[in-house]
């Protein structure tokens, strides 16, 4: 494989690559029918092509095949021939750019400049050349104003996709492949992304292939439209104009769920008069946590049989408002009151209700269906909430088991999921998951249903079914609240629209409440030191302490580390803010030893079988101090080092394989996201009726389930991230680095100081007579 990228020539890649498929087919492992078979198509260099087809038509498979990232093994193999630029696509003779739909996994590095350079570095492009390409690429996608050090995690979805595009452009690919690039970003961000893509293709002459099911944005900008046949080859080869004029084609595509331009699925609609108010919010202010951004005050009334749509800019906190209305977050200020009919014997604030009472009254549907799955089969999933739903103020169940069975059967039929009743919810298709997640909430027949972006990324068929389902709910007097950008959806529900004003005092920057691995490093003397020198210094200072258990050597190291705080730009206050868990841990260790350590000297305290003696206290103090001494110097490293730089140094200077270093860093970049996800999962589980209370066993089981859900999401995401990295040429051969690492005299001095400190600490302890070898 190392020779795959061999002709790393610049000239060749500045023009488009042609594509030729002759009787091409692909068989996935563990599937009965091939994803593609007998595909014949010739695409000349530089053509802009839109690829369509019903779900399961092999559109993504075709793109991954062209990118050369489909893995061939005993069970999965291509047939026929697929050529890119005249050579077998699977040999990856030329750089090819690939963009997938999930913005989070299109970014690899934690800093903007590094991320743009990533693909070009993997291709072994000269660093000087890459440095010239970065500003050009960022400018071309409209992100020219961003600092190279800007954290990629703080970008919006649309910005992330444009950054990914900049990275693709910096590789200088002759072919760009986009797999539903706009499916997961909000409507306002679509035109700028689309324009950036078209400009990039035009200016570089690259061939462009876009898979989309919302055609509005693309139809007028491409040269050709290909429609794929499920399990087969080409169904149609069209001009873009046919998407507007050819009624037969339009009807056929609409039938397959494709959003042909100007098409709105038909739904039944009738005039309804709203009933009594169920939920009333007055100047309601919401936030996800104590320190999180607060939403502007909102006032609204949710009445039975009526729909309300919440709109607003990105970052206004629409989802936060929805979570608060759903009784999942506590209101920060203002009022949220359930009518006495809805509360049914409970207090007026939904947040105070137990999970079982909540699911029977207010149902919340999350944006990501998988967040809500808590069981192993579709049937159990549907039965879950009704089995837990409580009525009144006590523990009286809303349904008896027989009623639950009947409800589940009815929903399975209504949602056409009968055949999938025993399937694992996570294995369903995107549209099926969406329908199921709505149905699991409706199963407990709450009086109010709240949905967050229910139509996001859905095809026209799922859209129609969802709209129909909610219209039926409205007709049976349920109140519906939806956060959505989708005007057609609001119209179909006959909804009253409410605009949430932008939250005050912030820009569109995403804040993260959880821990950050790549927090920006402040400018300080130590920040300029080679990370390996710092790591070595810490090892030199702290590892010798392992050999002894005495308070003197530990104190020397702690004192020296505290003295070095100014070099790291840290005040003593900032240090304690960061390092307090260390103190707690040190105290804990000291107490443990004091209690059960070797006893000697006077008895200070007698607790049952334990004695606290002078000897055990001294041992405890030494143990606690040693733990602190091991930990405190690390704070100096962590607060002055970006993990990416540490990784770069490990790989370039210690020759740790870059595949593992950069792979690990890429995974670690998802930490903030996973913390957010974990918090969301906690809320989603309450929304499903999983209580926070219960026996220890129930709580452990609930947490284990939550960890499993977190892992499922994380592993899927990691798979997509790996595809992105492979498509960017990662791991195929020698790479170049735009950030070179040097080791100067100053770095050497830091390393030497650390080692000296370790030696001095032991020396002083020996001199003081407290040194004692632990082994």
């Amino acid at each position, binding site marked *: 494989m190392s020779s795959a990228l061999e002709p790393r020539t610049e000239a060749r890649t500045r023009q488009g690559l042609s594509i030729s498929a002759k009787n091409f087919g692909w068989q996935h492992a563990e599937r009965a029918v091939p994803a593609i078979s007998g595909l014949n198509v010739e695409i000349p260099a530089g053509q802009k092509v839109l690829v369509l087809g019903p779900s399961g038509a092999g559109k993504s498979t075709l793109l991954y095949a062209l990118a050369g990232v489909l893995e061939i093994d005993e069970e999965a193999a291509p047939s026929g021939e697929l050529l890119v630029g005249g050579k077998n696509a699977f040999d990856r003779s030329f750089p090819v750019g690939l963009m997938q739909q999930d913005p989070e996994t299109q970014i690899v590095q934690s800093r903007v400049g590094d991320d743009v350079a990533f693909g070009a570095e993997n291709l072994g492009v000269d660093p000087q050349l890459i440095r010239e390409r970065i500003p050009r690429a960022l400018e071309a996608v409209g992100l020219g104003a961003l600092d190279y050090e800007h954290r990629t995690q703080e970008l919006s979805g649309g910005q992330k996709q444009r950054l990914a595009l900049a990275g693709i452009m910096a590789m200088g690919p002759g072919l760009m492949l986009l797999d539903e690039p706009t499916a997961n970003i909000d409507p306002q961000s679509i035109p700028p992304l689309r324009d950036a893509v078209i400009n990039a293709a035009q200016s570089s002459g690259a061939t462009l292939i876009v898979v989309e099911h919302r055609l509005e944005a693309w139809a007028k900008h491409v040269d050709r439209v290909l429609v794929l046949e499920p399990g087969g080859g080409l169904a149609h080869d069209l001009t873009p104009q046919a998407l507007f004029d050819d009624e037969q084609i339009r009807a056929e595509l609409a039938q397959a769920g494709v959003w042909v331009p100007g098409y709105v699925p038909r739904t039944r609609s009738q005039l309804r008069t709203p009933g009594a108010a169920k939920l009333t919010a007055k100047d309601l202010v919401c936030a996800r946590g104590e320190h999180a951004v607060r939403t502007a005050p909102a006032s609204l009334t949710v009445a039975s049989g009526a729909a309300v749509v919440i709109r607003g800019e990105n970052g206004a906190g629409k989802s936060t408002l929805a979570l608060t209305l759903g009784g999942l977050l506590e209101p920060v200020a203002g009022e949220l009151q359930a009518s006495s009919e809805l509360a049914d014997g409970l207090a007026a604030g939904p947040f105070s209700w137990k999970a079982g009472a909540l699911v029977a009254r207010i149902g919340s549907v999350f944006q990501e269906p998988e967040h809500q799955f808590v069981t192993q089969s579709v049937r159990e999933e549907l039965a879950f909430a009704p089995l837990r739903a409580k009525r009144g103020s006590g523990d009286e169940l809303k349904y008896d088991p027989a009623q639950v069975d009947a409800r589940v059967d009815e929903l399975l039929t209504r949602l056409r999921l009968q055949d999938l009743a025993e399937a694992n919810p996570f*294995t369903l298709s995107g549209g099926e998951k969406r329908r199921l997640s709505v149905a699991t909430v409706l199963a407990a027949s709450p009086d109010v249903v709240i949905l967050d972006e229910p139509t996001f990324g859905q095809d026209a068929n799922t859209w129609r079914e969802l709209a129909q389902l909610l219209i039926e709910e409205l007709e049976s007097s349920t109140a519906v609240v939806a956060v959505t950008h989708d005007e057609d959806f609001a119209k179909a529900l006959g909804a009253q629209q409410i605009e949430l004003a932008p939250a005050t005092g912030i820009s569109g920057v995403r804040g993260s409440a959880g821990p950050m691995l790549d927090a920006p490093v402040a400018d300080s003397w130590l920040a300029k030191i080679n990370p390996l020198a710092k790591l070595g210094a810490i090892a030199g200072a702290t590892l010798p302490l392992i050999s002894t258990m005495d308070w003197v050597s530990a104190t020397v190291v702690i004192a020296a580390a505290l003295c070095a705080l100014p070099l790291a730009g840290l005040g003593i206050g900032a240090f304690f803010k960061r390092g307090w*868990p260390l103190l707690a841990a040190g105290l804990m260790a000291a107490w443990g030893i004091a209690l059960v350590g*070797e006893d000697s000297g006077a008895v200070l305290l007698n607790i049952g079988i334990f004695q606290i003696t002078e000897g055990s206290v001294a041992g405890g103090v030494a143990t606690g101090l040693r733990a602190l001494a091991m930990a405190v110097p690390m704070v100096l490293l962590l607060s002055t080092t970006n993990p990416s730089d540490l990784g770069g140094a490990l790989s370039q200077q210690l020759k740790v394989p870059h595949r593992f270093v950069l792979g690990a860093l*890429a995974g670690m970049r998802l930490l903030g996201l996973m913390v957010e996800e974990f918090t969301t999962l906690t809320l989603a589980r309450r929304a499903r009726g999983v209580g926070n209370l219960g026996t220890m066993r129930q709580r452990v089981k609930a947490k*284990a389930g939550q960890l499993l859900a977190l*892992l499922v999401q994380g592993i899927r995401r990691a798979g997509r991230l790996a595809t992105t990295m492979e498509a960017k040429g990662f791991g195929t051969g020698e790479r170049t680095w735009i950030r070179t690492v040097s080791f100067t005299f100053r770095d050497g001095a830091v390393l030497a100081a650390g080692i000296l400190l370790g030696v001095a600490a032991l020396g002083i302890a020996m001199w003081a007579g407290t040194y004692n070898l632990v*082994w």
Partner: protein
Amino acid sequence: MTEQLAKKQSSWRVVDIVIASVVAVASGVFFWAWSAGYGLFSLAFVAFPPATALLTGGWLFPAVLGALIIRKPGAALFCEILAAVIEALLGSHWGMGVLISGLVQGLGAEVVFAMFLYRKWNLPVALLAGLGSGLFAGISEAYIVANLTEYTEAMKVFHVAATAFSGLVVAGLLSWWAVRGLAKTGALGKLASRRAHLEPAVAGTK
């Protein structure tokens, strides 16, 4: 051909590396959430500090879980060390010590998988790997890194036994069970463990 196949099975693909690191990150998040959410849950053990060793298994599971998911040589070590790095980066306890613990704990599990030539990933092997990881961790803490050098000998022995037991149950049993759960969701589709839920608990070879 068989040689080629063996090489393919033991070499790491990009997807193996990234998924392994995400498993480690998820474990890190879980530690963080667990200790933040449950606050000072170890306070329950203030009355008898050596019993905290019973919780150690929670810190060992990335090793066994990672290996059972990735099924490649070095997976246990890689996941456990990375989880330790993340803990260290999040400003958790013990500084450099946490990295050494990660190395030792990962090694304990790795040795067991290596003894079975990276061919068996069933329940007994998972339990043994958890036990191995726990033993290594306990012995290291009691005798080598010697955080507990001031413990009485009986307490040290109790500590090692409790850590090993915790490794067996939490890291071994729960990881094995978690991988089966994951395989059922289809999330492991790209990995060697994608059929873990269909494999017999005891006999399974691969």
